[in-house]
């Protein structure tokens, strides 16, 4: 027993094989739970899908109703000795089965837009990616330099961090109406919300990362003749680069979480528009497929960036350890 459970201790690393097994389980468990709920008829299935209305005139094939209401209709028909309605247990329409969602992954891309001004799914996705991209780029263009300056120089930190600390508690969507008033109803306010949601965290996170730089490295550089003005570029920047890169990866994930709120502002667009449209037509399989696509794109980019990071920073030990 003790021998077998050696890995189940605080701080013990998992053997690589087990580590892979658990990683698969992390996805397999929720998916199998979903399968059980969807495919095992006596688990949950609170509704009845009508197959034959029988003699009950208000029933139609394909209709869903609660089990209790169906039982009442059945009882009434039995009492009047008329044809019984028939149906199968089913889940509510908002919980499609896994195979329906998987099918939707394909059909969502092949289905034409339902309205004339609508757009294909891939167009919606591409639009969302652009919003994220520009929001993140604009935020980083100011946030990264400011964060580094705050981490490196006291005056910058004292002059901006208290305000930023205050501002980051203001929920970004609260600025939606304001953003629309200033920037119109199209992409402007959406990018603005992502910038507001990302920027303030970014400055603080990067300032902290910069502060964690081993100061003896700066001192060593100074004793080698580095002038004060060169320290930032020659020591601080290369010194924090791997950590900065890691921060940016986390912050990019943050930006994604603001996407849906941002796209609801003004004229709804992108993947959010697709999701709301599909929900309106009760195409919930498509809704799930679209939500999952956001996740897949997010995780996919992050994995790519992690791999790129290992290439870019061969000296970074923590990257090797955390991602290997």
């Amino acid at each position, binding site marked *: 027993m003790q021998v077998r459970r050696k890995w189940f201790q605080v701080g013990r690393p998992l053997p690589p094989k087990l580590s892979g097994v658990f990683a698969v389980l992390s996805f397999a468990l929720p998916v199998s739970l979903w399968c059980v709920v969807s495919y095992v008829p006596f688990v949950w299935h609170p509704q009845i899908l009508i197959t034959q209305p029988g003699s009950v005139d208000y029933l139609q094939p394909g209709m869903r109703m609660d089990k209790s209401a169906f039982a009442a209709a059945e009882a009434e028909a039995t009492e009047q000795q008329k044809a019984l309605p028939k149906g199968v247990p089913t889940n509510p329409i908002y919980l499609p089965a896994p195979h329906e969602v998987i099918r939707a992954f394909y059909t969502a891309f092949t289905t034409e837009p339902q309205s004339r001004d609508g757009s294909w799914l891939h167009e919606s996705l591409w639009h969302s990616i652009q919003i994220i991209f520009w929001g993140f780029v604009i935020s980083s263009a100011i946030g990264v330099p400011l964060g580094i300056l705050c981490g490196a120089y006291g005056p910058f930190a004292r002059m901006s961090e208290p305000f930023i600390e205050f501002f980051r508690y203001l929920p970004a969507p609260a600025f939606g109406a304001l953003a629309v008033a200033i920037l119109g109803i199209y992409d402007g306010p959406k990018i603005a919300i992502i910038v507001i949601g990302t920027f303030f965290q970014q400055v603080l996170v990067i300032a902290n990362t910069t502060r964690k730089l*081993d100061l*003896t*490295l700066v*001192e*060593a*550089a*100074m*004793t*080698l*003749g*580095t*002038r004060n003005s*060169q320290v930032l570029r*020659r*020591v601080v920047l*290369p*010194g924090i*680069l791997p950590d900065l890169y890691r921060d940016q990866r986390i912050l990019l994930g943050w930006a994604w979480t603001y996407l849906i709120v941002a796209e609801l502002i003004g004229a709804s667009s992108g993947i959010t528009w697709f999701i709301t449209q599909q929900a309106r037509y009760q195409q919930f399989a498509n809704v799930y497929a679209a939500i999952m696509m956001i996740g897949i794109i997010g995780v996919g980019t992050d994995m790519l960036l992690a791999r790129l990071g290992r290439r870019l*920073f*061969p*000296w*970074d*030990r923590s990257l090797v350890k955390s991602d290997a």
Partner: protein
Amino acid sequence: MNRILTTDSPRLSYLDQSAVVRERFEQMKARDVLLEVRHVDKVFRTREKETLALSDISFTTHRREFLSIVGSSGCGKSTLIRILAGLEEQTSGDVLLDGQPVCGPGSDRGMVFQSYTLFPWLTVKKNVMFGLEINKYGPVESERQALQWLQLVGLEKFADSYPHQLSGGMKQRVAIVRALATQPRILLMDEPFGALDAQTRARMQAHLLEIWRKIDITIVFITHDLDEAIFLSDRILVLSAHPGRVQELIEVPVPRPRNTAQCFSPEFIATKARLEELIYSAEPEDESEYPVVPRLAEAADNVE
């Protein structure tokens, strides 16, 4: 064991120098004064109180001298070397290098720290090139010189490795040549071998002496290891603690070239006895504060 040997040769004092040693010291003192520290005080101020860390430190170092600074913990030896490096400012007094007052850090005073301060993002070669490029050497010339320096410490094979791929001793060798590459007047070393294991440490000490012999460099070396101080130094500056004051500047009577066998020579032992006397007599008796451990093992079960 050292104490027993000391009593074996009671007549030899650490002040007695053989003719050869005396001649060496005269030679050394005939060289120019390279570093002059005059009445340096250092006060650390916090909101609550002021702490006097260094008080009236004065000494001079001659060109190509190897000076060690020893003292119990809290004597401010690290503060002193940081002042020499220009990383901290003295509250009063002067530090003169070649007669010029020291102002801020500069490449005329190289420094080796206890924690390996190699830049992790640069290869070994680029680390050595760092100071050269900062000091306006072109990339080709910097690389040529860096490789020569690496050869000096036998690490030319690791030129393209990153610091994390090196052992502690190798890292410190790179740190030494990185500091030497900019051709400083003086090399300041703040417990550079403190984190190394005993064997590596001994080899690094011998190697450092070898470098010092061959290169026109003056070394100020901080350590709390008395054997290390005696083995390496021409003179040893002993500081007392709280505040740090100069207790004595000891001329090490052990003849050069040094070797490990000298650890048992009467000069070595006499010097060490004197250092222990200076450092540990000044300290409050720490041992009385440890309690006597009550016996918990069985009565008959003795290990000694």
